[in-house]
């Protein structure tokens, strides 16, 4: 918590310094920067608050335990399909995802599942309202749907490349395929 507040303060102070320098050098540009920032804030604030509520609810109702139950147990195709779709709906950042996935991996999830999981997590469905607002619905829908085949390819290709690579490096290498 203390670290979060410190990081928040660093961002705020750094931003104010940048803005301040611009405003001193050119008050007109300083105003313009402020106007654009204010416009973007007003455009996004309601959506952002809604998105935060979505993510909070998802974190509580689809916790790490539920996930590891779902992904740890299911192997093969079923596991890969789950890993390529469920993470679409999760929030969080890579910093929170990596430790969670390490736990899943230790519990027996395959490399393919972990790779697919990270890729599918990039789908960011909870942020979809924000994405549509700023980039349009055609872009957002296309991106979201492309993420699923991307995650499956990522999982399968990632695992096979990694296995071949590690076999070549291990003594008395023999191919798994």
């Amino acid at each position, binding site marked *: 918590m203390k670290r*979060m*507040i410190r*990081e*928040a303060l*660093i*961002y*705020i102070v750094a*931003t104010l310094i*940048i803005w301040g320098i*611009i405003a001193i050098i050119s008050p007109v*540009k300083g105003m313009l*920067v*402020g*106007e*654009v*920032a*204010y416009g*973007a*804030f007003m455009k*996004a*604030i309601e*959506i*952002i*608050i*809604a*998105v*935060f*509520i*979505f*993510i*909070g*609810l998802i*974190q*509580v*109702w689809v916790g790490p335990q539920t996930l590891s139950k779902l992904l740890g147990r299911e192997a093969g195709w079923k596991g890969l399909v789950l890993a390529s779709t469920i993470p679409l709906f999760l929030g969080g*950042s*890579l*910093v929170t995802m*990596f*430790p969670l*996935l390490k736990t899943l991996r230790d519990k027996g999830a395959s490399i393919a599942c*972990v*790779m697919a999981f990270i*890729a599918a997590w*990039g789908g960011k469905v909870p942020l979809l*309202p*924000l994405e549509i*607002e*700023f*980039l349009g619905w055609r*872009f957002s829908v*296309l*991106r979201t749907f*492309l993420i699923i085949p*991307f995650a499956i390819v*990522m999982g399968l290709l*990632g695992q096979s*490349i*990694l296995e071949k*690579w590690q076999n070549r490096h291990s003594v008395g290498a023999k191919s798994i395929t």
Partner: protein
Amino acid sequence: MDIGIIYLLFAFILLIFSAVKDIKKTKQALKASGKIALAVFPVLFFIFILMGVVSAFVSKETIASWLGADSGVLGVLIGEVVGCFALVQPAAVFPFAGVLRDRGASYGAIFGFVTTAILIGVSTLPLELRCFGRNFTIVRNILTFILVFIMSIIFILTLK
């Protein structure tokens, strides 16, 4: 009606459902939302000001020539590389990408930027190395970069 209000209404309806089912879990959810807000709002402040800086100092021609439709696949590569180094919360990626879009960046380059900004982070590399080891990290990041590049071609061809 404003679309933001509709999302907010929907969020509150979900909250009420959640509270009816389990009040303790709902309190935890609100706490989690608050924590996310504390982490994201300062970054958003930074990004919004950065959006203003881009609008005030970088001309449309510059963005268009680097990331615009005429820049083609090179624009995608630039977008991807910038995304790899962008130290931002996923929630801040879309507003910033919106400014690039308004200033003439192509959807292919925007897709490259957005996706690598979310999935490849120079700042999270140490954590990934510690969790999954060197080989996994190298394969995942390079493969992501290549597949995102291939997918961005679809965006270049379909969205103008």
